[in-house]
């Protein structure tokens, strides 16, 4: 692994302050641990809980808890539930579970057995024994912990014996001897008594693991499972144990796992530095955690101050709410938990805003906390609803018909590029009109290749996806790429510099140095800047030796490379792939593949829609949308009729699909014209009449008003006045049927019809108007 100097690092990522080497623990290395076993009285309270709400308060909790956990065999861990008989047939989320006498709840830290060592030494040492006399601590014999080897010693057993626990760090004589280079002889245990290890020791040696519970649920078969976030010891990180690591230090990770409840041993307490410093005598299971370790990128991040705050507030909240709903029932179903509102933050000055980068992690989980009532997946879906869901753009069908050839081509391209030992950089340009499945195909191929990587057929690669439309400025693409590559968010200039280094002289970002990178650039044409530098930079990287970069660009126009400057188009290479619009058979095939097993459409209706779409654009999205819209219309029709007979034959019929087609293809103007006010219609007809007479495209308000006046006098309608007429014209202009200048120009205001098919639309809309029958005379 390559080490970077801290200075460089801080320069790289100023805001997240990550580090490739574990950062040194702060100077006050002696958070007073020496008096850990000074007395036995308060016992381990939960670090973040109020004493009142902690589930078990006992006078000597160490012993009591241990006994409980020993007495109740771990095979039958769960307290019998009174609703055992009517156990529901699905997963039930729980917030608290009584397990082995101890109460586990979300947010607690626990020891978890590693699978292989579960039975190795089942006798678990509850209380630490003195390293000299091998007897546990008791009321009269106070123990002290060595800050180096973490061994416990009775004050009296020491030579010379100590009267009270000393201030500051204390190191036992054995460690002191060891340090000064002397031979150390540890006292041997008495015959017949073998050395037992505590859970803490096991954890630090890697036989146990520590985890924080993220959620608890009960499976259908009644077993309880946890989703937990693992902690790691310094030895388990890529950097190994460093000199500055404390003995009891753990790293929080972003590694999650699901474990069964049975593998949980008992509580431990992972604290942040502040809590750790204050926790003076809380038993043996106390650990220190200051940094988060990213398992993917192998970097460390200091847990910022508010994180501590978070779990504080979070836990306090859980306790509040659990007090009233937990007394009767240990478990609670997700669906009937009362709604918990996120309380406003206690300490506003410290908390970042939710829409800033740092605050997001703190605020966002609160949304999920407020529970919805019954969610929609519950009710039985009708045929139409099923069809509508299958046809929605958001649904992810398993198969992608009609694009096999193109997908094969992409696949061979990527495979050819990756498979080379050299892995030369390459470019592929994909073009086609919207809705022809370009992005979908690339994604499907990438999923395919990922599974091949998992099987070990293909060497691993890294897939980065960017979309030009989602960037606020083209330059931000560097930022996005760098962030996906390394996990750090930096400014685009820095990102550009780092990426440039990465691709040119082999100074690699992150741990992806061995892997080739496949970069998908969707909506490539949005990345064009005036001097085209962004495209130039990105397309230049693949041409460099050892870049191992494969670029796939997607855009709509066929000849985008030709519009670019020659140095870019030459770098883009000649490999292109065209996605032609779907024809009606392909569209129908796509829809049928989605509707497999759902009989929601009457015969030939899908073909009708597909033919219409194929004739206009060949956009698969459009075809899906029309069919979905038709199902919704049918649904509405069925619901309105509210008739048992109609519900029986709830299928999409011709009227529905025609309605959907009309909505998409028919000009909306006609309906709108029919809804115009009376004078609006007269104005429109007058316009048509006047335009016919003059043969021009536009006319002035003066001409129009004269025509309207003559209409009015001929058909005995009261003329409403110029200003009202002007208002009517402006309203027509607002609705987009007429283009008009601002009304300030008054008489010389120019008006123009704005219908797709000109005057014919108006004739179609206003002929045989029941309100004003004489209008047809002028059409």
């Amino acid at each position: 692994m390559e080490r970077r100097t801290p200075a460089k690092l801080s320069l790289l990522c100023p805001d997240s302050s990550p580090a490739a080497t574990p950062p040194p623990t702060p100077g006050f290395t002696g958070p007073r641990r020496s008096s850990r076993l000074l007395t036995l009285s308060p016992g381990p309270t939960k670090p973040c809980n109020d004493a009142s709400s902690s589930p078990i308060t006992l006078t000597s909790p160490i012993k009591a808890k241990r006994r409980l956990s020993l007495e109740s065999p771990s095979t039958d861990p769960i307290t019998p539930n009174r609703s055992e008989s009517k156990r529901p047939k699905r997963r039930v989320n729980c917030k608290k579970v009584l397990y082995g006498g101890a109460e586990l709840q979300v947010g607690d830290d626990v020891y978890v057995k590693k699978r292989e060592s579960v039975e190795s030494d089942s006798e678990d040492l509850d209380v630490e024994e003195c390293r000299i006399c091998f007897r546990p601590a008791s009321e009269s014999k106070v123990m002290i912990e060595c800050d180096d080897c973490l061994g416990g010693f009775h004050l009296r057993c020491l030579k010379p014996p100590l009267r009270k626990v000393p201030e500051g760090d204390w190191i036992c004589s054995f460690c002191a001897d060891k340090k000064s280079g002397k031979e150390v002889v540890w006292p041997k245990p008495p015959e017949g008594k073998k050395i037992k290890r505590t859970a803490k020791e096991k954890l630090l040696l890697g036989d146990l693991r520590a985890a924080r519970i993220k959620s608890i649920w009960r499976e259908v078969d009644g077993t309880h499972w946890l989703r937990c976030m693992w902690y790691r010891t310094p030895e388990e990180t890529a950097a190994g144990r460093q000199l500055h690591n404390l003995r009891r230090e753990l790293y929080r990770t972003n590694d999650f796992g699901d474990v069964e409840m049975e593998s949980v041993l008992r509580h431990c307490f992972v604290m942040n530095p502040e809590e750790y410093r204050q926790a003076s005598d809380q038993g043996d299971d106390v650990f220190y955690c200051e940094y988060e370790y990213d398992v993917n990128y192998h970097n460390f991040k200091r847990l910022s101050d508010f994180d501590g705050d978070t779990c504080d507030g979070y836990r306090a909240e859980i306790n509040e709410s659990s007090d009233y709903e937990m007394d009767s029932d240990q478990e609670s179903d997700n669906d009937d938990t009362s709604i918990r509102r996120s309380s406003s933050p206690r300490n506003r000055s410290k908390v970042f805003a939710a829409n800033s980068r740092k605050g997001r992690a703190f605020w966002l989980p609160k949304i999920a906390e407020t529970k919805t009532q019954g969610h929609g997946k519950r009710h039985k879906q009708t045929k139409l609803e099923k069809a509508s869901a299958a046809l929605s753009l958001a649904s992810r069908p398993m198969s992608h018909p009609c694009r096999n050839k193109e997908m094969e081509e992409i696949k061979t391209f990527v495979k050819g590029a990756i498979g080379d030992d050299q892995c030369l950089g390459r470019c592929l340009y994909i073009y086609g009109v919207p809705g022809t499945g370009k992005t979908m195909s690339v994604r499907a191929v990438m999923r395919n290749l990922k599974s091949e990587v998992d099987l070990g057929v293909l060497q691993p690669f890294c897939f980065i996806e960017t979309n030009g439309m989602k960037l606020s400025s083209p330059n931000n693409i560097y930022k996005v790429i760098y962030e996906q590559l390394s996990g750090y968010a930096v400014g685009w200039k820095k990102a550009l510099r780092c990426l440039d280094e990465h691709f040119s002289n082999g100074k690699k970002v992150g741990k992806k140095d061995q892997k080739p990178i496949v970069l998908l650039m969707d909506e490539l044409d949005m990345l064009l800047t005036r001097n085209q530098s962004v495209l130039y930079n990105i397309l230049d990287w693949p041409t460099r030796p050892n870049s191992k970069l494969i670029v796939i660009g997607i855009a709509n126009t066929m000849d985008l490379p030709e519009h670019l400057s020659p140095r870019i188009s030459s770098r883009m290479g000649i490999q292109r792939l065209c996605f032609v619009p779907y024809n009606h058979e392909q569209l129908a095939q796509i829809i049928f593949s989605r509707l497999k097993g759902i009989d929601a459409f009457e015969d030939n209706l899908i073909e009708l829609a597909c033919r219409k779409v194929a004739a206009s654009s060949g956009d698969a999205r459009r075809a899906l949308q029309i069919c979905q819209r038709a199902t919704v219309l049918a649904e509405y029709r069925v619901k309105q009729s509210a008739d048992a007979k109609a519900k029986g034959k709830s299928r999409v019929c011709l009227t529905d699909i025609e309605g959907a087609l009309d909505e998409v293809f028919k000009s909306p103007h006609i309906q709108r014209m029919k809804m115009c006010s009376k004078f609006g219609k007269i104005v429109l007809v007058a316009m048509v009449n006047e335009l016919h007479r003059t043969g021009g495209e536009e006319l002035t308000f003066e001409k129009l008003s004269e025509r309207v006046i003559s209409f009015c006098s001929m058909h005995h309608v009261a003329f409403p006045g110029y200003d009202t007429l002007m208002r009517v014209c402006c309203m027509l202009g607002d609705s987009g049927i007429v283009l008009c200048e601002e009304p300030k120009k008054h008489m010389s205001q120019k008006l123009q019809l704005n219908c797709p098919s000109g005057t014919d639309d108006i004739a179609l809309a206003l002929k045989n108007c029941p309100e004003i029958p004489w209008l047809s005379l002028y059409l």
Partner: protein
Amino acid sequence: MAGSVQASVALVQLRERLCSRTFAHSLLQSSSDSNFRKLKFHISSSISSACSKVLLLRGDKGSGKAAVVELVLKDLKAEHPDAISVVKLYGLLHNDDDNSALEEIARQLCSGHEFSFSKTASLEENKEFLMDMLKEYGLARKTVVFVLHEFHLFTQGKQWLLYTLFDAMETFTSQSIIIVGLSCLEGSEQQLEKRVRSRFSSCTLLFGPPSEEDGRRLLEQLLHLQKDSSLPSKYVVEFNSRLHKIFSDKKFKEILSSFACADGSINHLLRFLFVASSYMDMESGHLSLQSFESAYSLMKRQPKFDSLHDLSILELYFLVCMHRLQCKEETSYNFNSVMKEYKAIQDAYRTSDNYSHAVCLRAFEHLLDRELISFTDAKGRNDSIRFRPVKLLVSSRELHDSLKSNPSCPAILQKLLDHESYM
């Protein structure tokens, strides 16, 4: 005295109803084919089946699009508490091109959950926040409703707000993002960028003027006093019966239909009723046909014609002169040329309306202020008014009518106008 107290209480009651944004539309929601029902069906079905949807509400200004959306969302919020959050954006305020739209989204999402919000967050941060929020909403099975007022203004420029939202609708599967666009402009979907249009599909609801039947029902429910109000029942009964008589009056129907000729929207009707209620006779405490009539005459006033009516004789001379110049096909004229024409007339007919140059300039400026004439060019601000070309904004017919209706207009002026234009 008691009568007037009753009347003022009744008036307050009426005005509360007439000024409420949603009251009139809530009266119409019960009818079977109402937009309220359709909209509610669409939104609630996509909430229950967790699918995303775009709804486009089209209709003239004042046809009640926003009010119906408000009513539907209020209803649905009561049905699904805490499951819906609403983000309202206005096309005029939240321009697509800068941070303001995303910042506003972030602000509204934050305030909906009592999160703290930072104004200084960058565009990227806000965008990521939106995406993360949508993801979280998906996990929590909540619905976000984006209400885009003036939807057609979002369809200009780069349109990446729409692209982002539509793409999110495709990306997040287990959740419902509902976009309700309100637009009075037809063809706004034609302006969409091709990529955005491919992702765009909408259910369209058309808002039009209420039908005759609905309009009648609306009138009754708006103006009839409630029986169980604090007012004495005798008064309420009489008030309502009088109203009933007015409604069946032929003249009232005429007023109503001629009023709806220009603009039949509900908002226009409400405005008319409000004016009518202001003409209520406070002594008797009842609405009469008279009050509706005077309201109608007030509503159909033509401000342009009124301003023509108020002009002095000299100003009328000027307008006639300009009209004569126009008829002589002089395309461009300014104060000096108009003055020349005026002097020529004065020389020929020797009227008593011969004024000095300075007075004429004042009159000319007054006409400019009234916007009866205007400069043809926008530039040349530093030039003197006398040399800038102007044009007439009044048609000959309007001028003719105003001369006719002006009692103090000298006959010669009318003759001058007639002579030239109707020869």
